[in-house]
């Protein structure tokens, strides 16, 4: 599928690694998530892997503090207080290997986090915790949540952790933040997520790793020379990222194809859906509805590139042009194309959550409330991305709500085929009985309630950041539509599906 080859050279003590990409569609899998790189131009990705160097004595920190986190007045017993969403922002979502190529997961995370705190005017010392999501393993900043606090210059007394739940990552960081608040452990938590595929770590083979670690632990020169006989230069070619979901050996796209076949989702239905989502997104942008959520980014070498809009949305696309795109995975008989699949995307999102009491006492804006969340998992070998069609009905059932009680549905769009599969499944009585344990079919979510401002097919899908984007969007749409409830469903690698129930304030926002 990819006609890529890698080459490496050592220059000025830096290991330069060149990865030549000459496929129009490059599909890669990092451990458990498949990326689809749409229309990657023939080009070179250059990455510098700096060799570890002995560090000098560290500089003295300017004003290290050893006080506890500013947990003023936090009650420490479980509360039944509602969890308020006090703000939700994100960077523009842009095609990977594009304008954000000089950004890192840390830099984009910092940008949204500091901006959100500044806009809400919250006292950063009151932030009890930062919960962040990132999907591609980070070698430079494995715990972005903590590092973003340290690098931003915010009070160094706020702890943080970073989680990985693939595409549902930041939906989970919002969930975990809400849980802490509901349990009374925290009153103010910053949640979010990020993905910068332009900055993915490239690794060596296991053989090379074993060789290097043995060499570094060798006690004598003689021992080192002894190891040399095992030296295999081939092992030192950088390892192209694995191409499959670890457990099934299939790419995400191939799983999408399986779902399209099993649910008989035609190419036309997929393209029509893709067209709708792009149009809706383009309209929302034109109306200026996205303004409150977008944090502009100055990027590039001299910070000379100003990015304040998403760049994947195609409002001018047509069914004809979508129909012309060749299938990306099953080249002969497939129906999934670059046009009806989400693109490889860079971006970050942040959501500020607080106990209702704290938010009101401190005059924070309230967008709405996190009511509950629910995650399910299915056998990945069957329909990898069908999870939301189980999670959403089950979550609503838990709260005694039916399809018609909710005015706003946000189903994450990895592939048009996957969204349509989920919609069909929820309308299917057998599926709902057997798989979701319902008494009857949940029903068909009408397009008038679904992804009203478009979805990930149009905006793109930075894995760790999508959940945060959707939380903000769902609440803003629900507010506009004067709908009390909004529900989110996100499918994730490993056969998982997560749903979240949100409630609006019924009064003014922001």
């Amino acid at each position, binding site marked *: 599928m990819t006609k890529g080859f890698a080459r490496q050279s050592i220059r000025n003590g830096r290991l330069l690694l060149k990865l030549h990409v000459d496929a129009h569609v490059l599909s890669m899998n990092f451990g458990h998530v498949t990326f689809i790189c749409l229309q990657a131009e023939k080009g070179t990705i250059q990455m510098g892997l700096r060799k570890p160097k002995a560090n*000098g004595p560290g500089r003295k920190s300017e004003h290290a503090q050893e006080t506890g986190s500013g947990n003023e007045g936090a009650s420490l017993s479980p509360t039944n207080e509602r969890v308020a969403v006090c703000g939700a922002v994100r960077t523009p979502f842009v095609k990977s290997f594009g304008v954000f190529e000089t950004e890192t997961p840390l830099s984009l995370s910092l940008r949204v986090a500091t901006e959100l705190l500044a806009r809400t005017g919250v006292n950063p010392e009151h932030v009890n915790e930062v919960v962040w999501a990132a999907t591609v393993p980070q070698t430079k900043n494995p715990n972005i949540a903590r590092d973003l606090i340290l*690098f931003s*210059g915010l009070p160094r007394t706020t702890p943080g952790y970073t989680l990985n739940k693939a595409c549902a990552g930041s939906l989970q960081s919002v969930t975990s933040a809400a849980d802490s608040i509901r349990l009374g452990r925290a009153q103010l938590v910053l949640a979010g997520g990020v993905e910068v595929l332009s900055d993915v770590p490239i690794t060596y083979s296991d053989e090379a790793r074993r060789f290097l670690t043995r060499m570094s632990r060798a006690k004598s020169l003689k021992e080192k020379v002894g190891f040399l006989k095992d030296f295999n230069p081939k092992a030192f070619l950088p390892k192209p990222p694995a191409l499959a979901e670890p457990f099934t050996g299939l790419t995400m796209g191939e799983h999408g194809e399986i779902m399209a076949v099993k649910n008989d989702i035609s190419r036309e239905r997929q393209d029509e859906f893709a067209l709708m989502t792009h149009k809706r997104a383009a309209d929302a942008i034109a109306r200026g509805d996205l303004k409150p959520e977008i944090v*502009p980014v*100055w990027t590039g070498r*001299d910070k000379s590139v100003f990015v304040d809009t998403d760049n994947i949305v195609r409002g001018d696309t047509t069914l004809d042009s979508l129909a012309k795109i060749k299938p990306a995975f099953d080249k002969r008989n497939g129906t999934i194309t670059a046009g009806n699949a989400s693109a490889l995307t860079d971006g970050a999102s942040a959501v500020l959550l607080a106990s209702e009491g704290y938010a009101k006492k401190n005059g924070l804006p309230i967008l709405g409330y996190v009511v509950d969340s629910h995650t399910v998992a299915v056998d990945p070998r069957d329909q990898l991305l069908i999870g939301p069609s189980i999670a959403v009905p089950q979550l609503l059932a838990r709260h005694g709500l039916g399809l018609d009680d909710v005015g706003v549905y946000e189903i994450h769009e990895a592939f048009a085929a996957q969204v349509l599969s989920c919609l069909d499944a929820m309308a299917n009585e057998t599926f709902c009985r057997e798989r979701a344990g319902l008494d009857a079919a949940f029903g068909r979510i009408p397009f008038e309630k679904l992804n009203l401002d478009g979805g990930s097919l149009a905006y793109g899908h930075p894995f760790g950041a999508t959940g945060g984007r959707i939380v903000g969007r769902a609440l803003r749409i629900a507010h506009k539509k004067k709908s009390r409830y909004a529900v989110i469903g996100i499918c994730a690698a490993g056969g998982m599906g997560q749903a979240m129930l949100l409630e609006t304030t019924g009064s003014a926002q922001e």
Partner: protein
Amino acid sequence: MNAIENIKSTTGTLRFSWENDVCIIDFHDESKSMNSFSQEILKDLDAALDAIFARPSLAGVVFTSTKPGVFAAGVDVGIFDTLRTKEDGADAARSLQRLGARFAAAPVPTVAAINGTCLGGALELSLAMQHRVCSTHPSTQLGLPEVQLGILPGGGGTQRLPRLIGIAPALDLILTGKKVDARKALKLGIVEEAVPENQLIARAVKIAKATKPAAKKSGVKMSLVGHSMHMFSSFEKGLADVDITKFALESNMIGRSLIEKKSLEQIEKSTKGFYPAPKKALEAVMRGISKSLEEGLEIEAKLFGELVASPESRALVHIFRIMTSAKKNPYGKEAQGQARKLVMEPLLSGRSPVGILGAGLMGSGIATVLADKGMRSVLLDREPSGVQRGLKGVSSYFEDKVRKRRLKRFEALAAASRVMPALEYKSLRGTPIVIEAVFEDVKVKHDVLRQCEESLAGEPFIFATNTSSLPIADIAAGAKAPWNVVGMHFFSPVPKMPLVEIITTEKTTDIAASAVFELASKMGKNIVVVKDGPGFYTTRILAFLIGEAMSILAEGASIEDIDGALEKFGMPVGPITLLDEVGIDVGNHIISVLSKPFGERLVIPKELEAIVGEDRRGRKNSFGFYTYLEGKKDKPDKTIYRHLKHGQERKPFDRQEIVDRCVFAFMNEAARCLDEGIIRSADDGDLGAVFGLGFPPFLGGPFFYGNTLGRAHVKDRLETLAKKYGPRFAPAAWWSK
């Protein structure tokens, strides 16, 4: 450690204790924040040595300080007052040398155990000891900053350091006054070991016990032969350890003269001949190294004496003193406490950012310095492209530091990340202080102030306005909280210029003024607090200098003659070059502001209007009094002369006359500012002129220089100038005092 009874410190600054027969001398002056050697303390130490050396069981002496972060900052500058003549100076040097010699020739091993700042005389005394060990604590910094005070290390430093570490590295420290940390000190060989601070004393005692006193070893004198021997012995250790260049350069006459020549060139370049100290220090090193230590020390003492009595040293010591005293916050305890709580603590903890309005060169520079000092800022501009220029300025400053290896890459990243870009005022929420650096127009200033008030509704904030000439009271007029409006005049480029002028109005509260004072000092700036008035202090006196230069130009002098004359006088750049740098449009704007109140005295030739009318703005549009080639200043632009009398035929002007007219106009206006109470003291006037305007430090500032010349003399000269050129030179009252 057991305290002992029979050795007393008459000054109470020395404490003695014993460990395994090793006497530990702890220098700890509790009356001051820094340890420094006064005459009395030196005598005290001298007498204590008699008692210590008299102990029969004595095994060694360790000299250290338990004062946190400080070993000793050298000899107290108070000593300078007692040194009136060359002979006084040479004697003072000899007495410090003699004390060093006692440690050097002690009957038992002597060890300096250095933790914290160790500068000047303190390092010289340490160099005289037989061994040195220091802590790896970040506060441990070693250096010989004497040249910065216009003198040279007179306590043996110019002799012992090159003998210890080699000529070239020693000159690098002595001629620049730079400080080195523990790692570098160990690498250079200044200390034998660098250990964690909790192990320092134990290690020093161990060294004292394990070694024999120097006097009993052969080859004490590290002269030429000794040094070569050292090099040869390192050959045995293996080639890798030998510094070939050092060997080639320093162990023979040709190599040494090469070093001397290179150093002289360097000195000429950096001092332009205005500062004699580095040259004399070089002389002390180069002449001393080929002689015995004793002869070398005598050369050093004599040269030290010459420098101490020099006017340059007196001026530099004066500046050092006024700098030190200007660091004190002049406001009441109560106001200081409030300012700290409301402004500085939130900024230093990272809770709140400083708001900066306008991301131009000024705004960007302010953000850069704040980030460098660990503070967050929100850099706001109307235009994305404005923010972009600001962010670029910030990141290129830190990138440059990474390139020069002053910062690690992650440190630069963290620093640059402390600057948050913004386009909307709502991003300023939670900031206790906003510094505006927008266009110099009262309307624009009023507009941004109003927008801040709207966006920060209900949150009190200080509005620090960075203006060079607009009266603060005018800017504060219409403010909801005029008592929170303070002038905070930075100088461009902010990271380089070491002064901030703080301007208070009658309404400004002490809390607001104190907060701005604390912030400026955290930014590492020298501060003068001045009263509100047209042009405040620095802008006003500079306008008079530039105005006079313009008059001379209009009378027929050439651009290069005027700039050349003032550069020869010691100004870093001539007044016309300065006008190009600041921007002719900006200069003209300032003059238009100042001509109203000072119109009678501030005479600006009308020809300037024609020059401004051609849209000449100076460096920023490469079109000014000078021509610019690819952004670099080239030659005077002769086409400008067509607007002036005599056209291309410029007339020769007497250099001294040019200098006198410009400098006396400048000094006279400074004196008027003091007469009017714009500045609080002559010292503040000196500080502002030297650090804000580049008045020659070796002259000590306009007031110090006036006193050096004699006020009566200045008055006479002004009266003569007034007769010749007009009443604008009428002497200020201060000259008659």
